[in-house]
């Protein structure tokens, strides 16, 4: 983390999806999946992005990978603005940013042998072929805890945890700087999940990788992240280091989210569980003002009209809530309803 230039920087990223309807398939609306997101990740750092279904966390990941074209904003990879790069231009930068998916099985060709899957990027980028490639693949297999003998196997012959190791080996093959990991352990059982999380941490420390780690699981987040961004309906509502986030959350949504998660300790009596009313509104019709005001226990009249900006209200602690202005004390808010 000595390098000052962030490995990945995102400024005011916006991704809208048009909704088409009617007989002529005219655009009838817009899903504001990502609505102005800004963050940066340094070498060797994990930025966790947490939020519930439809908050836009996966869209952030896909847009950063340029699998989706951003509607507006900037994406900088190692200081280079790649926002408007064509797929051809992007190709040379593709090596720097790789991804690990939730379900590696659906992202791998079932007719290819495991060794070929992991070695494919090496060949694509002209990094190695033939025997040199096989040797590199074998060492990648070993690095992620798979036996090189398994290179001849097909993906269906692997367990879920082993497949995720394959996915990680493939991402590592081209020596990237940034890895976007979208729910990489959500499909795994706890005992296997621990193996994969440990591997991800080891690899990060060894290769100084920057992780954009997307997950809905708060325990996993607290374990692997250095800093965490909480998203709600396309916007980051809070961003700070993980200890501060978990011990002194400032945004009412973060507070509710943390209080809602079941804790595996019956002896720990929770202070109070905040049960949010209703469901997350549709990102096609987000509420006016603060998107969270419809469910927020502390909402005041202005929350319906004022768009809260993400401000650094305390050192290293960004919050988008008009009830938490710059220089806020951390005292609990008084419910208004």
């Amino acid at each position, binding site marked *: 983390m000595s390098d000052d230039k962030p490995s990945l920087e995102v400024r005011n990223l916006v991704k809208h999806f048009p909704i088409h309807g009617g007989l002529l398939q005219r655009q009838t609306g817009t899903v504001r999946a990502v609505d102005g997101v800004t963050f940066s990740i340094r070498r060797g750092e994990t930025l966790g992005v947490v939020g519930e279904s439809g908050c836009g966390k996966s869209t952030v990941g896909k847009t950063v990978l340029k699998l989706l074209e951003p509607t507006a904003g900037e994406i900088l990879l190692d200081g280079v603005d790649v926002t408007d790069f064509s797929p051809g231009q992007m190709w040379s930068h593709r090596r720097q940013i790789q991804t690990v998916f939730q379900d590696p099985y659906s992202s791998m060709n079932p007719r290819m042998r495991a060794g070929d899957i992991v070695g494919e990027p090496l060949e694509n980028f002209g990094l190695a072929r033939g025997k040199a490639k096989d040797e590199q693949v074998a060492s990648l297999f070993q690095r992620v805890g798979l036996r090189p003998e398994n290179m001849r196997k097909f993906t269906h012959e692997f367990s879920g945890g082993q497949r995720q190791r394959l996915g990680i080996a493939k991402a590592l093959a081209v020596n990237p700087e940034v890895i976007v990991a979208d729910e990489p352990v959500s499909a795994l059982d706890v*005992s*296997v999940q621990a193996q994969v999380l440990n591997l991800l941490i080891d690899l990060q420390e060894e290769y100084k990788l920057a992780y954009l780690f997307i997950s809905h699981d708060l325990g996993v*987040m607290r374990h692997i992240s250095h800093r965490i961004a909480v998203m709600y309906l396309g916007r980051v509502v809070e961003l700070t280091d993980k200890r501060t986030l978990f011990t002194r959350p400032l945004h009412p949504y973060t507070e509710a989210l943390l209080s*809602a998660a079941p804790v595996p*300790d019956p002896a720990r009596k929770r202070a109070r569980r905040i049960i949010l009313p209703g469901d997350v509104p549709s990102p096609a019709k987000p509420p006016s003002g603060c998107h969270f005001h419809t469910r927020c226990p502390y909402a005041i009249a202005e929350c319906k009209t004022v768009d809260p900006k993400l401000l650094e209200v305390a050192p290293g602690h960004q919050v988008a809530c008009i009830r938490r202005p710059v220089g806020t004390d951390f005292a609990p808010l008084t419910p208004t309803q």
Partner: protein
Amino acid sequence: MSILQVRDLHTQFFTQDGVVRAVDGVSFDLDQGETLAIVGESGCGKSVTAMSILRLIQAETGRIVSGSIKFEGRELTTLTEEQMRGIRGHDISMIFQEPMTSLNPVLTIGTQIAENVVRHLGVSWQEGLNRAQEMLELVKISDAKRRLDEYPHQLSGGMRQRVMIAMALACRPKLLIADEPTTALDVTIQAQILDLMLELKEKIDAAIVMITHDLGVVAETAQRVVVMYAGRKVEEATVGELFAHPMHPYTRGLMRAIPRLDIDAEAEGRRARLQEIPGMVPVLTQPIPGCAFAPRCPFATEKCTAERPPLVENRPGHIAACWHTDRVLEQAA
């Protein structure tokens, strides 16, 4: 008083690869009004245990090969399908993980709930609909009267799960089996549903079997826990006792493998490593003569692979199937 007694249950599936011993000799009791959690990872047999109780194992693929399931003293394993239908949705009902797949997409919410009520309680259709509306209000669905005419696809995931609960409780069951009822839901919605289930349980006084992989859900909802591994019960205790003194090496491994959201796992400024359980679950088509967990267990000896450990009560009300409980507890102390 015990409402459900499961004794030495064996449920097997017959596949091309051989006989899968999905439930391999499981016994437990459930008291009236009690919540019992059955916890374990994929393939441990927790869901098959639930399906066995309701006799929902598909005859083409598998069956209960031996054992007994007594509900209010009545043996369920020998009932006819017709007799079972009188019990399902009436005395015993079930909530599934994915409500969309268990709701009928072409029938309105009201019809689906009323149908069940009319069938089991023999009331008129109008009374059935009234009950349906009552139930929707009970599960806190706003504007219940209008919702009766809506279809499942018009509801959000959380609402659908509320409808499932309304349907399950409409005939005032004595036993509710909930199979991962909140796993598909977001955290804040999960909190709503768990809260609702606990509140309704008090009102209706039903016993609950909560099937889950999530020790957090166990800690917050259950009174007693059965831990399953590879089709077998490996440990059982009250919730407080299990979390304070886990005795089976698998339970202990599971608890240490969870990344905690209430604790900073850091050692000297670095992120601590999670405790891994090495290897993976055994294949259930091969008979396992010893302890099924032995290949992954740090305490395992030759005896463990050769001889199946019996369930022993090592502390009051706390049983575990392990040959080396004394060593496990010694290490914990």
